[in-house]
C-alpha cells in the first residue's frame, strides 16, 4: 500500500497520510561520520579550482545519508515501531575532510 523502508514507513510530515497513529515511542536517530579517500579529495580539489558541482562529494553525502537513515530505521525497528514521522536531517563538519550526517525522527506505531 505504501512505500516502506525495511518495514518502516518514514515521512517528513507530522502525520502519515491514511494512517492513524496509535502510540509514540520517542525520538530515534542515526548518524555516520564519513570521509572520502585521498585520491577523491585530490580530484575534487582540482575540480574546485575550476568551480561548479563536486559530484564525488555529492555521491559521498548521499551514500552516508543512506547509511544514517538505515541506522535510524534499525533503531525504530528495535523499538517495535512501524513508522517514523517528522524526519529531519542535520549535517555538521566534525573535522576538515569529514562530515557527520545525522537524521532523527519520532518513532510511532500506526494501525
Amino acid at each position: 500500500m505504501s512505500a516502506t523502508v525495511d518495514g518502516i514507513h518514514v515521512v517528513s510530515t507530522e502525520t502519515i497520510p491514511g494512517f492513524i497513529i496509535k502510540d509514540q515511542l520517542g525520538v530515534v536517530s542515526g548518524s555516520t561520520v564519513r570521509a572520502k579517500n585521498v585520491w577523491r579529495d585530490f580530484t575534487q580539489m582540482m575540480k574546485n579550482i575550476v568551480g561548479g558541482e563536486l559530484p564525488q562529494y555529492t555521491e559521498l553525502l548521499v551514500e552516508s545519508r543512506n547509511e544514517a537513515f538505515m541506522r535510524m530505521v534499525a533503531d525504530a525497528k528495535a523499538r517495535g515501531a512501524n513508522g517514523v514521522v517528522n524526519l529531519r536531517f542535520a549535517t555538521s563538519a566534525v573535522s576538515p575532510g569529514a562530515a557527520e550526517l545525522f537524521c532523527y525522527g519520532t518513532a510511532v506505531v500506526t494501525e
Partner: protein
Amino acid sequence: MQPSYSATGLQWSRNEQEESPLETIELLFYAVCGLPLLLILLWSVLWAVYGILFSIAYPFLFLYGALTGSSKKKEWQDSLLLRERQTLSRTGKDVLSMDKLRRPQNVSESGVIWTSIVVGPSHWQQLVASIYMLFGGSIDVYHDLIALGRSEVFQRLREMATDKGYDAVIGVRLDTSMIGTHRGKKQGSKGIEIFAYGTGVKLDKPLRG
C-alpha cells in the same frame, strides 16, 4: 654480506670475523626499520610528484575556471530553466510544497525522498569575492552560485518525485552546510552542500488546477 676479493680463504674468514658484529646490528636495523623507512620514502616521493604536478596544472586550471566560469553558469541556468519548464508542463503545478496536505484522505501512498548537491566556488571566484569583501556589501559571485545550487536541488527533487511516480512532495525542508577538506588553507576544496528532502505522496486525484 660482501664477498671478499682476496684470493685466500684464510683472509675471507678473518674479514668475516671482524665485520660480523657490525653487520648483525645493521641487519637488525634494516629488518626492523626497513619497511617503514621504505614507506616513508615512497610517501615523500609521492607527495613531491603530486606537488610538482599540482604546481604545473594549477595556473592552467585557474585560468580555465576564470575564462569559462560565466559561460558555464549561463549554460547551467539555461538548462535548469528548460528542465523546470519540462517538469512543470508534465505536472501542471509545482509539485513541491512545505505544507501538510490539505486533504489527506486523497493520499494512497507516501514515502520520504531526498537529494543533494555540493557546489564549490572556483578559485577565481574566491579571489573576486575576497576583493569584494574588502568593501563589504553583497557578494554576487557567491550568491549566484548558491542560488543556482538551490534551484538545481529543488529541480532534482521534483524530477526524483516524478520518476518515482509521486504526484506531490509535501513538508519540503532545506539544509545547507559547509564542507571542506582543508579549512583555512588556500589549497583544498571549499564546498557548500545543499540538501533537500520531503515526503512524496501519490494522490487519487492529481493536484491539477
